[in-house]
C-alpha cells in the first residue's frame, strides 16, 4: 500500500480563504535573498489586511538540499495552501514538490526553475539575461576580441544556462574566451579571481561576469589601473552602480536586472489561483514556466536617471521589478 496523500488539514482548496502561504528559502547569505523575502512580506501584508491571507509561514535558513526538503515537508505538515520556494537545486526538490502538489498544495519555484511538472516556475529567462550582457560585451570588444569569464558556481543550473547562452553569443560574434574561473557569486572571491586573471592574461579586452560578483571584478580591474582598457559587464545593484557612477564618463558597462521581486510576483499569482483563478497554460514555456520580461538594462545612457532613483536604497539594494496583483492577471485565464 502507499501512504495516503490526504489533502493537508487546512488545505481545503476552495476559493474561500483565508489562506496560508509557505515560503522556503534555502540560502540566507546574500542581500538578494533578503530583498526577495522582504518583497514577499510586503506583498503579503496587503492580503493579510484584507483578511485573505491568514499567515505567511517563512522557512528561511542556510541549508543544503536535504535541509530544504525538510523545510518543504515542514510547510506541508503545517498545512499551507501554497508554497513559494527559491530552490537550492533545479531537480533535487522535485520529489518533495510532487508530494506537496499531490496534496493539493500549489507550488511556485522562483529564481531557479525546477523540472517538476506540477510546479509553476516564475522568473526571468536566465539565458536571455546572460545573452543581453554578452551581446553588449561582444559589441564592445568586437570580432577577434579576447575576454575571460568569471562565472558563478560550475554545475549550478542557472550558471550553466547563463554561461551557455553567453558562449553562443561570443562564438557567433567571433569573441574568444581565453579562460573561465568560478567566483562563487561572491564579490570577494570574484575580486580575487579577477586579480589572478588580470596578472596572467594581460592581453584581455573584456570580462563577462554575472551578478553578485561584478562589483568585485570591477574593483580588481580598477586596482590594476586598467578600467580604461578592459570592458567589464556589470550588475544592476547599487554597490556597482555607485562605483560605475564614480568613474569617468568614458567608462562603460551594462547592468541587466535580475529582480528579487519575482517572489512577490509569485505571491500575487498564488493568491489569485487560491481564490479560484486558473493559470493560462498557453503562456507557459515548457509546460510549467512563466517567463517574466526583462527590464530595460542599465547602460551609460540611463545610468544617471536610474542612479538618482535608487541611490537612497542603500548599498546592498538590487534593482527590482514586481508585478502587481493586477499585472499578474495577464497570465491567468480570464472568464
Amino acid at each position, binding site marked *: 500500500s502507499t501512504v495516503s496523500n490526504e489533502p493537508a488539514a487546512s488545505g481545503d482548496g476552495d476559493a474561500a480563504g483565508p489562506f496560508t502561504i509557505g515560503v522556503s528559502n534555502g540560502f540566507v547569505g546574500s542581500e538578494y535573498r533578503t530583498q526577495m523575502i522582504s518583497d514577499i512580506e510586503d506583498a503579503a501584508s496587503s492580503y493579510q489586511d484584507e483578511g485573505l491571507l491568514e499567515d505567511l509561514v517563512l522557512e528561511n535558513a542556510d541549508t543544503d538540499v536535504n535541509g530544504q526538503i525538510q523545510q518543504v515537508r515542514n510547510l506541508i505538515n503545517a498545512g499551507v495552501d501554497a508554497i513559494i520556494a527559491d530552490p537550492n537545486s533545479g531537480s533535487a526538490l522535485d520529489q518533495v514538490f510532487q508530494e506537496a502538489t499531490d496534496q493539493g498544495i500549489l507550488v511556485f519555484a522562483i529564481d531557479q526553475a525546477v523540472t517538476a511538472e506540477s510546479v509553476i516556475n516564475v522568473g526571468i529567462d536566465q539565458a536571455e539575461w546572460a545573452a543581453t550582457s554578452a551581446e553588449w560585451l561582444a559589441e564592445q570588444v568586437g570580432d577577434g576580441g579576447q575576454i575571460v569569464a568569471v562565472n558563478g558556481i560550475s554545475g549550478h543550473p542557472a550558471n550553466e544556462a547563463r554561461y551557455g547562452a553567453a558562449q553562443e553569443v561570443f562564438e557567433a560574434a567571433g569573441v574568444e574566451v581565453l579562460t573561465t574561473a568560478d567566483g562563487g557569486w561572491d564579490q570577494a572571491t570574484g575580486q580575487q579571481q579577477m586579480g589572478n586573471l588580470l596578472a596572467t592574461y594581460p592581453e584581455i579586452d573584456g570580462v563577462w561576469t554575472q551578478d553578485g560578483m561584478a562589483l568585485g571584478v570591477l574593483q580588481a580591474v580598477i*586596482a590594476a589601473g586598467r578600467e580604461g582598457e578592459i570592458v567589464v559587464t556589470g550588475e544592476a545593484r547599487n554597490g556597482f552602480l555607485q562605483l560605475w557612477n564614480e568613474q569617468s564618463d568614458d567608462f562603460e558597462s551594462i547592468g541587466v536586472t535580475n529582480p528579487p521581486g519575482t517572489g512577490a510576483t509569485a505571491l500575487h499569482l498564488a493568491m489569485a489561483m487560491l481564490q479560484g483563478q486558473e493559470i493560462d497554460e498557453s503562456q507557459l514555456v515548457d509546460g510549467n514556466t512563466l517567463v517574466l520580461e526583462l527590464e530595460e538594462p542599465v547602460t551609460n545612457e540611463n545610468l544617471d536617471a536610474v542612479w538618482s532613483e535608487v541611490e537612497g536604497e542603500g548599498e546592498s539594494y538590487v534593482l527590482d521589478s514586481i508585478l502587481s496583483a493586477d499585472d499578474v492577471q495577464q497570465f491567468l485565464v480570464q472568464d
Partner: protein
Amino acid sequence: MTRVVAILKDPVVVAALIAVLLIAIGGILRPGFASPDQIVDMLRVASFLGIIAIGQTIVVLSGGEGIDLSVGTVATLGAILASRTMAGDDALIVPGVLLALGVAALIGLANGLGIVLLRIPPFVMTLGMLGVVGGLILVVTGGRADGRAAPALVSLVNGRDVLGLPGILLVWIVLGVVVTLVLRRTVFGARLYAIGTSREAARLSGVPVRRVTVSAYVLSSLFAALGGIAMVGYSQQVFLNLADDLTLPSIAAVVIGGTLVAGGVGGYLGSAVGAIVLTVLTSLLTTLAMPEWARIVVQGVVLIALLAVYGRQRRLRS
C-alpha cells in the same frame, strides 16, 4: 650535509620551497603569474587568511583537540560590525575596529568557557558557535550587511603605500613577529605550549590551564575579526558571507605549516607560509585553463600531497 638535511626537514622550509615552486610553475605556464605585481597581489590576499590563521595556530597549539571552526563567521561578523560603524568614514575606524574586537572577544570567551567549564569538545563547541554567529549576523543586519570600509582602511589594504607594498603586508609581518615573540618569549607562550603538550603535567606545574585555554580562544576570535576587517578593506563593501569560507583553509594553513594538530609543537611562521602556499595554489589553479571539476580535484590532491610531505603522524612501530 647533515645540516642541509636537517633544514630540509623543517616544515616551514619545505612549505616555503613549495610556495616558491608553485610560483615558478605558474610563471612558466603563464608568465604574468610570477610578476612582482601578481606576487604582491597574492600576498595581499594571503594576508587575510594569514591573520586569521594566527588565532587558529594559537588554538591548535593549546592542545586538548583545540580547533576553532568559528573563525570564518567571526571574521565576517567583525567585518560587518566594523564597516557598518565606520560607514566609509576615516574618523570612525577606531570605534569600528574596537566594536568588532569587543564582540569577537565575547564570542571567543563563550567558546573558551564552553570548552573549559561545560567540557564541550572544541570541535563541536566552535561548530555550534559557527551557527550562533551566523544567526547573530542575520539579527544584527536583518539580512543586509550594508557596510563600507573607510578610505584609510581601503588604502591600507589595496594601496601600495609602504615601500611600494600594501600596508596590510606590513601589518601582517608586525603581527606575525609579535605573535612569534609572544609564543617564544612570554609566560603566556610558555604556558600555552605546556598545556598543549600535557594538560595534566601543566596543571601540576602550577599553570593556570583554564585561563590559558580561554585566552587562546579569545585570541583566536580577535585575530579572526582582524582578518575580517582587513578583508573588508579589500572588498570595500561588506557582504553577509564575506569570510565564511576561510575556516577550513585556516586550519589547513596551520597543519601545512607543521604545527602538530595534537598541540604543543609548532609556531606561527609555518602557518603564515601555509597561508601563502594555499593562496598561491588557488591562484595557480584559477589561471590554468581547465574545467572547474578538475580544479577542485587537483586542489584536493595537491593538499593531500602537501600534507604527505611532512604532515604525517607518528608510526606505531617506530
